[in-house]
């Protein structure tokens, strides 16, 4: 499998999830790239901004990530390399993933308070922009090879579900069982466009055994969390749809809510075709 990037901010949550990423890389036979984005500190003394030595800072950050990489490599017996870069987290991670030709990103999701939930974390911002699959792991999750994946979808798409090819590769690689969940508001009539999208999804998933779940409910998040328990899902998969400005104002991000509430690793699939397995 293509290399996996683990983006870390060295928080306690990130340190715990790093072990998940290492186990995942080992199980997938992939290289692990640790990446840290740092911001330039602004030092003020007696009312004046004191210039910081950028070279020294860069060296210190490089040394820190290199040391951590060596520790993880030794502990898990996998190939690990590390890099650190200054800048804005989402942009830098995107750039690093592109340069390193990684196939997947793993990020930690710490428990969010009400304010964080309103503004979102780096992980939830990144998942909307990423061009590769992102696995967002709650910080207390112990690693377990994915055996059951629950794909949640709203069927709001006109494309041919090419983004699911990555999911198919993961399902085949790990020999997973796949469940597909789509909720339907009982007060609304079944819609022909969504039905067509459902049939195209069926076509795309041909040869991948899967079980549909089509409960009537207007509470998607409750339906997801309930089914996660019922089928004992290890991962939840979702395709976040990019919303226009006005739509974005009206609709809350369901994918983000799933990430926050599912309490399982959530695999976010980008809306583009790619391959994960070399």
């Amino acid at each position: 499998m293509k290399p996996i990037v683990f983006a870390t901010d060295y928080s306690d949550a990130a340190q715990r999830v790093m072990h998940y990423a290492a186990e995942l890389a080992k199980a997938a036979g992939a290289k692990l790239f640790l990446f840290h984005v740092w911001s330039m500190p602004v030092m003020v003394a007696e009312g004046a901004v004191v210039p910081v030595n950028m070279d020294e800072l860069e060296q210190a950050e490089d040394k820190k990530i290199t040391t951590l990489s060596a520790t993880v490599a030794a502990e898990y017996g996998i190939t690990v390399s590390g890099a650190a870069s200054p800048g804005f987290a989402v942009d830098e991670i995107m750039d690093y993933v592109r340069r390193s030709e990684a196939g997947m990103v793993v990020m930690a999701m710490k428990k969010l308070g009400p304010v964080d939930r309103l503004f979102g974390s780096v992980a939830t911002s990144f998942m909307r922009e990423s061009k590769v699959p992102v696995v967002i792991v709650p910080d207390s999750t112990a690693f377990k090879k994915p055996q059951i994946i629950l794909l949640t979808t709203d069927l709001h798409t006109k494309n041919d579900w090419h983004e699911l090819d990555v999911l198919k590769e993961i399902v085949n690689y790990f020999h997973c069982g796949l469940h597909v969940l789509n909720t339907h508001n009982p007060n609304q009539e079944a819609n022909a466009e969504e039905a067509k999208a459902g049939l195209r999804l069926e076509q795309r998933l041909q040869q991948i055994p899967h079980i549909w779940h089509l409960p009537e409910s207007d509470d998607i998040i409750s339906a997801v969390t309930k089914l996660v328990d019922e089928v004992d899902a290890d991962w939840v998969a979702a395709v976040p749809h990019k919303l226009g400005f006005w739509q974005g104002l009206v609709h809350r991000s369901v994918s983000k809510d799933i990430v926050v509430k599912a309490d399982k690793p959530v695999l976010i699939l980008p809306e583009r075709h790619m391959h994960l397995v070399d």
Partner: protein
Amino acid sequence: MNLHKKSGPELRKANIRDVLNELELYMRPRIKEAVEVAQEQLHVAEKITPDDTTLQSVLQIVRDLKSALYTHLAREYRLLYPVMRAASNGTWVAAGSEIKSFVQEMISEHAALKETLAQLRRATADYNSLPKASPSQKLAFAQLNVLEQDLNMLFYVEEEYLFPKITYTK
């Protein structure tokens, strides 16, 4: 329109959208109600005669049937019928190729459900309760008999009337 009262030739002349509406608005709720009532009454009967192994095996078959049947009905209702309705001129359905394999899958699921119904019929000795059986058991078996008839009607209407009306475009 009452599907139970329609003869084959009458059914073949019926408007596709009317038949789909009939299946959705009348047949689907009726089937689900029969399953729910039968299961509820079997639970009551099981409490009255907890050692009745026949009852236990009937209840297990009903659980399996319900699980497979509800998913099947939901997939037809949510994925197949809206596409058929949108693509129908009343007499024919001109649908894309994506529907073809799905229809084949639905027919395979019918076969599996028919097999489960046959199991149910064997386990209940053709839905005949013993004279000493509890009223709940008698009611449950009667409901299962109705369920079998309704499901056979649903399968017949779909396989002999609806699905052959689909022409597959590229």
